């Protein structure tokens, strides 16, 4: 079946502009995660959805970052007034309700803020 998809694959934006990144999880996966990976670094957790609610938003770096999930499926990560330090690869993952949790990752969106 189809895996996790993300769009766009690459995004170049000017400092100060808003961007929206989209994630389509694997069908039937109730959990969805957003991570950020800066060049040569590990994964920084941003937010986790269970269904449409976000029980853990602890990783969002500032109030410029927000995310929503509708219909228990597609999620959008929005970054307002982008800064150069927002440049990174944004990865989305989803998992089923079975435990232990294995996460299935999308290919990521490479965001470059100029």
């Amino acid at each position: 079946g189809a895996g996790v998809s993300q769009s766009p694959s690459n995004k170049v934006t000017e400092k100060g502009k808003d961007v929206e990144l989209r994630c389509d999880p694997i069908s039937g996966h109730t959990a969805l995660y957003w991570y950020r990976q800066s060049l040569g670094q590990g994964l920084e957790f941003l937010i986790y959805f269970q269904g449409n609610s976000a029980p853990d938003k602890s990783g969002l770096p500032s109030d410029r970052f927000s995310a929503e999930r509708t219909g228990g499926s597609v999620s959008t990560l929005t970054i307002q007034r982008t800064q150069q330090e927002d440049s990174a690869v944004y990865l989305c993952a989803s998992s089923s309700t079975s435990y232990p949790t294995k996460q299935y990752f999308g290919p990521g969106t490479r965001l470059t803020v100029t």
Partner: protein
Amino acid sequence: SQQGEEDPQALSIQEGENATMNCSYKTSINNLQWYRQNSGRGLVHLILIRSNEREKHSGRLRVTLDTSKKSSSLLITASRAADTASYFCATDRRGVTGANSKLTFGKGITLSVRP
């Protein structure tokens, strides 16, 4: 600081050799997982070991877990050029109940396998 910290940060070996990568963590865990990442894109799950397990095998992969030392190792035997990638350990922490708990990833190890 990172829950999982891998070492070495980079490893270069000849095709056919074995590659051993280590991961240390700080708090008690439910399980530990290893993921592979090619070319800075999405991660692929490789293997999971539960806290009550000591060793697990999957094909050319062997994972060990020592909860007393809070460490794990990933061994890739008979390496191939296609194994060139970054490898991350991820910990699923004890105390987080139920499904869909959050994984905490280390910074990763860059493995280069020379043909």
